[in-house]
């Protein structure tokens, strides 16, 4: 055992796990209700309970699951599978940026632990983790504990939603099909940062609409959102200066 370790090496303690789990307690109720919605939509789309629970445990990315389930095909084939994967990739692409933001904190840790911790990355422990790090916290257990607590919530909460969803006969009259669009729209409305986003999202909507008219299926989500992202990127000055925001 060498006593000489890099000073910045992050720790991994049980106390850290508890700290992280505590950070997530206020989110248990909202995440549960979001989970109920995912369960109800999954029932509407004909998934079995095992399939739903596997998806919750393995994918663990609620917004992408709701969007993918909204576009879930009735008939499967290779292209339909690709489309679902692409849609999931598009909705979750923000996690790429979030994981990049953990380089300073996790970069000096054992890579197995660093990458293992990133398996639990969601919007919730990204935001909490970045705040914890900014306040001087370095315990990897905090990030993992936060991620694991919500992971358990995310597996359990959709089950009652699923069972209730199977009982609803006329799902349209009860607005089940609108749960995902409403919730997702409210969440992204918070991310709006100015004129560039307005223009980019307008382009995304128009391109998405046009491609859907022309092609059908799900490819309009990918093409439309990439068009919007490119517009925002091009409107952003390449230098670090603040402009147009």
């Amino acid at each position, binding site marked *: 055992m060498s006593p000489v370790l890099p000073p910045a090496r992050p720790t991994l303690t049980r106390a850290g796990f508890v700290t992280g789990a505590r950070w997530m307690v206020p989110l248990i109720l909202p995440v549960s209700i979001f989970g109920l919605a995912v369960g109800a939509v999954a029932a509407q789309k004909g998934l079995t309970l095992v399939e739903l629970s596997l998806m919750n445990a393995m994918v663990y990315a609620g917004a992408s699951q709701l969007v993918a389930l909204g576009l879930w095909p009735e008939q499967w084939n290779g292209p339909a599978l690709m489309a679902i994967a692409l849609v999931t990739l598009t909705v979750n692409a923000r996690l790429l940026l979030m994981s990049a933001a953990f380089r300073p904190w996790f970069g000096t840790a054992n890579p197995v632990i660093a990458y293992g911790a990133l398996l639990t990355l969601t919007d919730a422990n990204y935001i909490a983790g970045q705040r914890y790090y900014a306040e001087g916290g370095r315990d990897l257990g905090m990030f993992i504990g936060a991620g694991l607590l919500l992971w358990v919530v995310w597996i359990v909460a959709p089950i009652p939603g699923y069972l209730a969803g*199977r009982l609803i006969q006329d799902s349209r009259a009860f607005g089940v099909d609108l749960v995902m*669009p409403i919730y997702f729209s409210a969440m992204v409305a918070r*991310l709006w940062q100015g004129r560039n986003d307005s223009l980019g999202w307008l382009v995304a909507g128009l391109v998405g609409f046009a491609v859907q008219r022309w092609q059908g299926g799900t490819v309009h989500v990918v*093409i439309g959102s990439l068009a919007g992202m490119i517009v925002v990127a091009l409107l952003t000055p390449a230098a670090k200066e603040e402009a147009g925001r």
Partner: protein
Amino acid sequence: MILDASLWTLLAILAMTAVTVFVRMFGFYLMGFMPVGPRLEAGFRSLPGAVAAATFTPLVVQDGPSALIAIGVAVLMARAGKSDLMALCVALGLAIAIRQAGF
């Protein structure tokens, strides 16, 4: 029957898992080599909204007033600082009322 699992659905879940694990790890991996510029960062940050616009515009056009009003109300409530949950409850209630009224 609610305990069955079909091969295609399992494949879809595996594919969703693979791409999600990839994005969870790849940004961290890349940052070992290269920084993300302000353009790419702004683009990534705007991506969820672009996904929503591209997904829901065709849906709203097809579905009509209930979807449009529900999404509009939810967006306004979120911008006004109400919780996502409250926005969902109010907007969904409105949509159900509009639909029960026969639109």
